[in-house]
């Protein structure tokens, strides 16, 4: 239906404008120190069945990834900050694919971590297919990018959207799961069933 007509019909149906004061979400956040954020992130992400690792140096990250992928194929979904680590990686790197035929791992870079929910936020600079199609997913996260809660995270998302459009912000919390078969949890239904987050401190 024509938009003008739709909206004017809707307006005509509205009862006399009630005087509703505009309310907003509280902008308050949980006050957590940097260390508390990291601890909280680790415990909440683990509770959501994510394997969390903490590394201190690039070398450590590199050998940890080699350990996890164990010679299997992987695709770099768009890591910039950590790109140099991936170039020296010992493994079978694939071009970004829209099909997942033989790629076992997607390796991505998170823009934000959310402590209270154990969430990694991926933006559209990451190849979407690469973060979803391979059965296993490794996400690199800078410890300094962990914020306390969703209020702070969506504050950043909002700011970023107002500055420059990004088609998607995907909040990932743990492996893909379903409880549709008699409430028994199954992992890796459509997205990755095994998720590692490497926090680089």
């Amino acid at each position, binding site marked *: 239906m024509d938009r003008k007509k739709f909206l004017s019909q809707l307006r005509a149906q509205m009862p006399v404008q009630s005087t509703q004061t505009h309310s907003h979400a509280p902008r308050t956040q949980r006050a957590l120190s940097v260390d508390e954020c990291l601890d909280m992130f680790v415990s909440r992400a683990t509770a959501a069945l994510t394997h969390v690792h903490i590394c201190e140096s690039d070398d450590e990250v590199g050998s940890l990834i080699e350990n996890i992928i164990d010679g299997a194929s992987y695709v770099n979904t768009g890591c910039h900050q950590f790109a140099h680590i991936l170039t020296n990686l010992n493994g079978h790197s694939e071009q970004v694919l829209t099909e997942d035929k033989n790629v076992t791992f997607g390796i991505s870079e998170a823009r934000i971590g959310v402590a209270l929910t154990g969430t990694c936020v991926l933006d559209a600079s990451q190849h979407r297919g690469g973060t979803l199609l391979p059965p296993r997913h490794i996400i690199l996260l800078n410890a300094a990018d962990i914020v306390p809660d969703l209020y702070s995270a969506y504050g950043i998302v909002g700011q970023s959207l107002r500055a420059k459009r990004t088609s998607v912000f995907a909040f990932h919390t743990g492996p893909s799961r379903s409880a549709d078969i008699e409430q028994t949890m199954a992992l890796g239904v*459509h997205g990755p069933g095994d998720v590692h987050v490497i926090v680089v401190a």
Partner: protein
Amino acid sequence: MAKAEKRGAVLRGTSMVDSRRKIACAELDTDDPAGYQGLRNIAASIKDTVLADLPTYLETFANNAEAAGAKVHFASDAADARETIQDIIRSKGAKVIVKSKSMVSEEIDLNAALELDGYRVIETDLGEFILQLEHEHPSHIVLPAVHKPKVEVERMFNKLYKSPMGASADDLAQTARRVIRQDFLDAEVGISGGNFLVADTGSIVIVENEGNARLTTSLPKCHIAIVGIEKIIPSIDDLPVFLNLLSRSATGQRSTVFVSTITGPKTLDEPDGPDEMHIVLVDNRRSTILADEKLRPILRCIRCAACVNTCPVYQQIGGHAYGWVYTGPIGAILDPVLLGLEDAYHLPYASSLCGACTEVCPVKIPIDDILVEHRRRAVNASLTGPVEAMAMASFATVMVNHNLYEAATRLAAVMPSSNGRMSRLPLPVITDWQSSRDLPAMKGPRFRDIWKQRLASAGANNGS
């Protein structure tokens, strides 16, 4: 399949999720500065603010979404919505369409229309995929296949995909993943629902656990989102309030596995994503609710199904007994408006008015008050006969008479029940009521028929 087996599955499923919800919501008292009750108040008031001025918010949303490169369509009713979507798809030369969960698409019977047009339409949510294979409808708004015992799925996958009997839930899920994956790669169009429309950024937000909605909105070149007009929130800053309440109330999770905030199609410098995005905003009698001050709070609903899981009546009779898309307490207040009170007046009676639903509703919809309001209107319009009036009286007697209530409570304490909850007590009354008239379940098929006929005639009127 034995009825008892189904009822067992429903009871187990809903009670398990209900107890997880309790724990997760209580945690908000420490996790969120506003606390659980504070968040409920804030969420309700944000929704009321939007509803009081919905046309303006819709306009803002549409302008911002189009500035982001999406095309926004407005559909006044089911036929209008289906035609809008059929038109978009026709221009794509599509063969395969993947869908992620959308209750609105159930409401407008979209799949049937698309299949008539010759497309292959695949429901990709595991529960809905299972139901689609058996030509069944969801019985629950969050756990579509909650009524389905696992052994039925084993049998079906065994027949269709040679999956072994006794396969684990993991194995069954892997089979579904394998089968659906090819459809994801082939599909030209992806159709999703949407949990929230964010006015100030023009984004749609989708909440899910499997990743099928992410794939549906990422792989096909054309993404169509179909969303009810009441899903608007003013600002992206308001989103955390609703996400905190929705995931915890729906499944007891702190966050669902995937939450996508989608703002337009892929940009030029992004590696992948749809080239084209359409958002179809559907009224379909929602404006009738909006215009009715007594019923308007219904439009705050975020479809978490907490009211469904906690409802002792739903746990007993299951979702299909409600006979339509929206089931449980939310169905009992929503369906009479969407379908018309004449056809659905009996649904508000499928309740003991125990108030459990109202207590758990994260957006504080006074569900039991609205149930009573529907009943009052049904009586005033002489839609109910003496049997219903009597049944209503007996519910009311139990609820308002202090002595009777006490006695029934004591009785409930010694009655076997899933968790000893007092709210189960009026059930014997309901059983009497059911035996004195048609079971609500008997109404099921007739209901769908009525709706189908109505859709068909609406379609005919529009010349399709």
